[in-house]
């Protein structure tokens, strides 16, 4: 259990959402029957998720497609009513006080813009100023800061529909933060961006979190975002919470296995080392997996150079991506019990 430092800014208890949809009958006649029958099928999108997030945290909310991430975010923003469970964001039950909740939050969707399509970027900002009733001087200060940080000067007067994806994303970030929200939900904020743009956005997120102490919930498929930004991740799969804790902990639990990559001067037939398992081999390069709790890398390297004509060696640490992929495949619990702590 995580120690309670202060009142959590986001708290869910057994949060659950079940969607009901009419059962579809196959075929043309079936389609007609769908119109008239009242048979429903239920789909559990979020199943008893309990999470609490402290003010100022930057949490990665991770899960495969259809795991229930967006459904959770929609409930947190108040546009979807939970089927059961409790939910409180900055002291407000979002779906009961949607408007009040809206003042506390900012939202960025990578795949959907909240900017006004036909208007120049800056006019969207002005509209948002009116919507959130941001005082003029604060608006001016925030806008100047964001324009400088996100380098938006050149396209401030361009209609949004003419902006590139990277420019639009920067605009969306500024739009979400103009009213100084306490909490920001980021849904795939770097999707489709090139490496440079991604890094610019990540640096911006880190800065906002550090300087403004904004609580940030980051949903993404790009685990490099999470590795770069988050100390804590919440993992869900098929609607259920499967891990909630430090990124470092999950890495050390799952990161028991490292890979020793050995390049040989001449092709070697079936190389083997005591204490390591051959996972890939193409003649001159071999990849061997070993448990870092049992074997020492330097001894393995010495062993390799005594047996074979070694030209070069390197050690690969497992990245979050491969760890998470394994958790989805094998489940968290089983692995958790095996892992020595």
């Amino acid at each position: 259990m995580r120690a309670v430092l202060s009142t959590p800014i986001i708290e869910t208890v057994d949060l659950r959402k079940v969607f009901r949809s009419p059962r579809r009958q196959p075929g043309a006649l079936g389609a007609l029957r769908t119109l008239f029958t009242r048979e429903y099928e239920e789909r559990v999108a979020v199943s008893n998720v309990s999470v609490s997030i402290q003010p100022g945290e930057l949490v990665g909310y991770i899960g495969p497609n259809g795991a229930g991430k967006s459904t959770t975010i929609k409930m947190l923003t108040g546009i979807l009513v939970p089927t059961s469970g409790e939910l409180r964001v900055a002291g407000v039950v979002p779906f009961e006080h949607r408007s009040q909740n809206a003042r506390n939050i900012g939202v960025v969707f990578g795949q959907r813009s909240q900017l006004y399509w036909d208007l120049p970027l800056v006019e969207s900002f002005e509209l948002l100023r009116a919507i959130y009733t941001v005082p003029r001087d604060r608006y001016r200060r925030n806008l100047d800061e964001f324009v400088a940080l996100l380098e938006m000067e050149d396209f401030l007067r361009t209609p949004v529909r003419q902006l590139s994806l990277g420019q639009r994303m920067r605009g969306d970030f500024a739009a979400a933060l103009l009213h100084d929200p306490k909490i920001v939900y980021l849904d795939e904020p770097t999707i489709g961006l090139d490496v440079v743009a991604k890094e610019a956005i990540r640096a911006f997120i880190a800065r906002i979190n550090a300087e403004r102490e904004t609580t940030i919930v980051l949903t993404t498929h790009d685990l490099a975002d999470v590795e770069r930004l988050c100390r804590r991740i919440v993992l869900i799969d098929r609607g259920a919470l499967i891990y909630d804790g430090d990124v470092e902990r999950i890495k050390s639990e799952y990161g028991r296995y490292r890979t020793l990559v050995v390049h040989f001067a001449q092709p070697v037939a079936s190389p083997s080392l005591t204490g390591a398992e051959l996972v890939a081999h193409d003649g001159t390069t071999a990849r061997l997996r070993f448990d870092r709790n049992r074997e020492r890398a330097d001894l393995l390297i010495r062993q390799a150079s005594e047996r074979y004509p070694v030209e070069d060696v390197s050690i690969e640490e497992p990245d979050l991506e491969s760890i998470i992929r394994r958790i989805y495949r094998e489940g968290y619990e089983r692995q958790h019990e095996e892992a020595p702590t």
Partner: protein
Amino acid sequence: MPIAAILPYWEFAKKAFAREVTYRFEVFTSVGSLVLRIYLLRCLWTALYAQNAAPLNLPLHAMITYATVALLMSLVLEIDGTRLIREKLREGTIATDLMKPISLPFYFFSDGAGRTLLYGVLVVPTLLCALLLVHIDVPAPRALGVFALSFLIAYCVNFLLNFCMNAIAFWTLETFALQLIVRWVSDLLSGQIIPLTLFPGVVGRLLFALPFAAIYSTPLLIYVGIVSPRQWGTALAVQLLWLAAFSLLAGAIWRAASRRIVVQGG
């Protein structure tokens, strides 16, 4: 209500106005087609009156006035501000609007009002063009004032009717066919094309009892003087009654709709 609370809606209206101005071509074509329709209706009613005995209280010049003012009103009344609901539901962008501290019905109303304002301004050139082709009567200033008031109520009733129609998209996602039917029925039954006084007996009385009459018929009959100054109070009261009824209905539909929002996609 404090100024700050109204400010966002004022901005929405301004932005809608600015957006609509960018579609200049559409604006000009709608004015052109309207002038043409005014002329065609004049020809039609003149021909009809030549063949038949004129109704006692609606001589030809009054009929042409009625038809012309009805078309000018349609310039404003045919703007469907709540069409946005359907578009936003289909594109899923209603989600981001719901994440803002605004009342969506008022947002739709102010967006519609902003667009209306542009078309309201266009009434003037359209009227001037029309006056080259037809002659219309101008009532006494007081009748004109009551007409304006009645038209304002009609605008709100029309907005709420459209709102209810479009809000059905929350359940069906698509309401186009239904809306087309309602549009045809209301065009016919609201007195936009044929004054309701021309419908005989029971049918006529029934039409006056329907809400559609509050949209075109009441302001128009006040304009041409068939509703006399003595009847103004009653006519406006009936309109207000429909306004109240539709407000309640729209409120109920909206509450039910916001409860069942399931955003498409995303």
